[in-house]
């Protein structure tokens, strides 16, 4: 096990890790509640995943296998940068395979392959407060959570429907956790929201700049906010992946020319690569 000279295993000092670990335990004990924590400056900037990085740094051990994705892909520059950081400061094994990872740190996606018990999914969260666009004052939203008063969110959705016939939120679509706390699932596409419901893996959420940690334990009820006559509908481009042929996965739209040419490919590179390799082997 090799780690960077001059820095502790996992970069953070033991006091900071303990503080974050205590916050994580309380977060798991009160699913969906945002626990304030003494977020530290990290060598990667605020807004670039410092919350997720601090959570991962506090839980990771030498036996872990880490996968880092950004936009579903392992090879986007920020995912590469974060994976390298942990390889350097914790000396852990890294992987691009969802199934092989014990910890998956993600920005903006939930992997397509179902996660299993024992895995931990760490989300990078920019704005942990689901109501921040409606009520930016933290002292106020804290009261609303205490009272479980989420009427401003319902009214906002109702107004969307009255105006356009649709709930206008497409990503960072708020969810109710265990019928108690309104929670931001982080800016994942609403397509991914159903995956949070009763997921066998532990889900941890870290917001570094906003200094909040929250969690969803395994098998916990997670419901996307909606109305009986306007049920939640996840959105996906109506297309087929040009690489693996998937009609189920979440797709990225690629502009191929300046004459309106478009193609679609899976956003989850491991899912896509595994499928494409399977098809090649079958041929």
């Amino acid at each position, binding site marked *: 096990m090799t780690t960077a000279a001059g820095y502790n295993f996992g970069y953070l000092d033991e006091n900071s890790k303990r503080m974050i670990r205590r916050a994580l335990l309380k977060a798991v004990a009160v699913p969906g509640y945002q626990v304030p924590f*003494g977020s530290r400056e990290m*060598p990667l900037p605020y807004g670039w995943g410092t919350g997720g990085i601090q959570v991962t740094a506090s839980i990771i051990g030498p036996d872990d296998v880490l996968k880092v994705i950004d*936009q579903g892909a392992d090879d986007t520059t920020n995912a590469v940068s974060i994976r390298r950081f942990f390889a350097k400061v914790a000396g852990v094994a890294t992987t691009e395979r969802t199934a092989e990872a014990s910890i998956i740190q993600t920005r903006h996606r939930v992997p397509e392959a179902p996660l299993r018990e024992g895995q931990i999914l760490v989300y990078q969260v920019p704005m942990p407060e689901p109501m921040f666009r409606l009520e930016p004052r933290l002292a106020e939203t804290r009261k609303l959570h205490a009272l479980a008063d989420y009427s401003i969110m319902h009214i906002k959705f109702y107004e969307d429907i009255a105006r356009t016939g649709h709930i206008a939120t497409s990503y960072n679509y708020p969810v109710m956790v265990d019928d108690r706390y309104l929670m931001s699932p982080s800016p994942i596409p609403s397509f991914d929201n159903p995956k949070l419901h009763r997921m066998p893996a532990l889900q941890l959420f870290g917001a570094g700049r906003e*200094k909040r940690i929250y969690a969803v334990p395994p098998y916990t009820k997670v419901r996307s906010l909606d109305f009986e006559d306007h049920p939640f509908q996840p959105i996906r481009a109506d297309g087929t992946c040009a*690489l693996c042929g998937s009609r189920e996965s979440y797709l990225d739209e690629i502009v191929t020319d300046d004459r309106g040419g478009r193609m679609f490919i899976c956003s989850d590179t491991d899912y896509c690569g595994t499928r494409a390799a399977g098809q090649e082997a079958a041929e």
Partner: protein
Amino acid sequence: MAYVAVKGGERAIDAAHGWLAEARRGDPECPDLSLTQIEQQLGLAVDRVMAEGSCHDRSLAALAIKQARGDLIEAAYLLRAYRTTLSRFGASRPIDTDAMRLRRRISATYKDLPGGQILGPTFDYTHRLLDFALLAGTPPPPAPQATPKREAAPRVTGILAAEGLMRPETASEAAPADLTREPLAFPADRSMRLQALARGDEGFLLALGYSTQRGYGNAHPFVGELRVGEVSIELQPPELDFPIDIGDITVTECQMVNQFAGSKTEPAQFTRGYGLSFGHSERKAMAMALVDRALRARELGEEITAPAQQEEFVLLHSDNVESTGFVEHLKLPHYVDFQNELEKLREIRADALRNAAE
């Protein structure tokens, strides 16, 4: 499949870092900049980086400035990220600015006062003409020397307080919270607020302070006193019953005197806004003092009408390491969410166009 050739992130990062290192160094024919040169000749930049980086170390701040190519916010961030890995050994005793070895001390409220006015090394009365003599690098003529007066220089706010005109501040023996170890909570107490302002972005605080002068917050400020100089840092180890002097640092302190209309229970009097900053940084200390006073609105029962009086707004947006991170993160890929927005917009537009056609 040229359009999806996104592999290669690792190589791209390595190449970009190589290019950055070259760009930072500039023309190799030109002599490398030494940290001593930065410390000595760009001292105010060093002071700003120490203040916003929350770490008093001139040579590390100089290193950060060099590494950041002169980008002072980037340099403050480098210093903060280093600082956060250090262990906290303890807290010093409060510094005593009454006992400051003064380099500069001015009051705008009294023509003369005990300890006198000391103009010191200031830009204030220079004519802002580019000095082409600096091009030649000729050393400046020696400044006139004088023997320092050993006269006590009590703080102006104390002089006003002796007359009962200054609203007293209640001293507290409670251990102040530590912003570097726990998150801000609202309402924030004054120690937490002052910590946040002390490391806040100079430009942001300057704009907010300025806004209070222009009617957004109803301030009538006077510079009671601005002082710059050296103070001792003392540590009291638990095993000893006397403090140990561990060194001197330069600080700038501003006490801004403001009118207070009084209330049903309190007579009209002056109140203070307080600013303190590492190094020589008058603009920062003054802006901080204006904003501190504006943020006392709730405590003093004043109506909160202006941005500078809104505690959450001010304190949550004053940290430039946080704000630059979040603004600049918009450069990261967002195509998953953008795709979702595209589909949503197409869906809503299709509905609207269909309805219009019917």
